[in-house]
């Protein structure tokens, strides 16, 4: 299992409680378009991810993240520099 896959699985787990439409999550899944999350859901989800990985994803970074794959890459990068 690669680093990316391992992070992806943990991210997917965190997405589940917020995945109201029950869509299949892949690297290409978008938060706004596919999951249809509003800013409040995003806030709760980001807090959950931050606690899961013990990292901080600033709002500046969040503005650049559109897909699950991009989030996984960001987490990988943050963990590498931690």
């Amino acid at each position, binding site marked *: 299992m690669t680093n990316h896959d391992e992070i992806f699985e943990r991210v997917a787990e965190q997405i589940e409680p917020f995945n109201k439409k029950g869509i299949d999550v892949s690297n290409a899944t978008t938060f706004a378009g596919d999951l249809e999350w509003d*800013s409040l859901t995003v806030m709760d989800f980001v807090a959950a991810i931050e606690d899961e990985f013990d990292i901080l994803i600033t*709002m500046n970074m*969040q503005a650049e993240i559109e897909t699950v794959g991009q989030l996984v890459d960001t987490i990988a990068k943050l963990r590498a520099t931690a």
Partner: protein
Amino acid sequence: MPDAIDTPEDTSLADLPNPAGAHDLLSKFKPLIREREDLLATGVRDPFSIVMTEVKSPTLAVIQGKDTILLGTYNYMGMTFDPDVVAAGKKALDEFGAGTTGSRVLNGTYQGHRECEDALKEFYGTKSAIVFSTGYQANLGVISTLAGKGDYIILDADSHASIYDGCWLGNAEIVRFRHNSVEDLDKRLGRLPKEAGKLVVLEGVYSMFGDIAPLPEMVAVAKKHGAMILCDEAHGMGFFGPNGRGVYEELGCEDDIDFVVGTFSKSVGTVGGFCVSNHPDFEVLRLVCRPYIFTASLPPSVVATAATSIRKLMHAGDKRAHLWKNSKRLHQGLRDLGYTIATETAQSAIIAVMLPDQEAAVGLWQALLEGGLYVNLARPPATPAGTYLLRCSLCAEHSDEQVGQILAIFAAAGRAVGCIA
């Protein structure tokens, strides 16, 4: 992923031919335009285009020819019609003219601006006070200037739009924590680089639900991690604390808050914003803060009314007591009628009635207006957690009789639209 801004409401052009074709920059607002049209098609009044044709007192205005009790103005201390305040404004208008036509750092600082800052220093017991043209600009300017590139701003998720906008105007990294959660704040501060500059931004009273912040606990956590603290007391000034300075005074945090931001458009009863501080280098902001420099200063009449009002608020203990009495009575009365209120007890002069959806909220809002009562309608994205609120803010000038009338109107309107039994 931005949020927390009020949406513009204006006449619809949704069905007219699109003037700019595929490149119409306004086309992204079509869903909002349609939502509003659908709402108005049900026959309700537009909650965002009320006009007051006559204002008789801080608590009474004429709306569509009808005397209406005002319960959504943030005019907490009722200073708008105070005879001394009005007289000071008239005198300044006569002596200094209608406006300054200039920036504070060029030709826009008059005697009155200096006196207004002196009044603030005395009111807050601080070394420095800087007056801005609005409260929005005070947050915009102070936050964006204090926290620069490489610094971190840590803010409550339910922060006011002016705080968010202040963050975006600057170059700092922005981190937010769950509303009023001391543990969440502690965790996030703990994950930041130790050597980085940090500004924690808090509010004394959060204006949507009217709840107050656990400031002593939050201040302790912020200090532990070496952060400076800014506290916005827009809704706390005037009636919290022995001197009316705000929630931070009431809760004993005066020595630990580095910057207090406030506004003249609530308890003070006019318009304008400010920041007060004891930091020895605070005055440098006048030279580097863009929202302070690149705009015209407040008109002489406005700073004169503000200074007079601030000085009177220092000795407004009786008014504060009456405002608390009004707030507690309305909170309990609405609960007794069967309404759901955002806070368990009256924590401030804001009492927020929670409604399940937009239809219920607008329906009750309109029934109240027809009954002669104006309250604020608040909806997402301005509200937390997607809630629909009828926000009531009390005034020290509401008489006991008026509070009784308000409760009677809420009883009749709620039953008429089926919100309460």
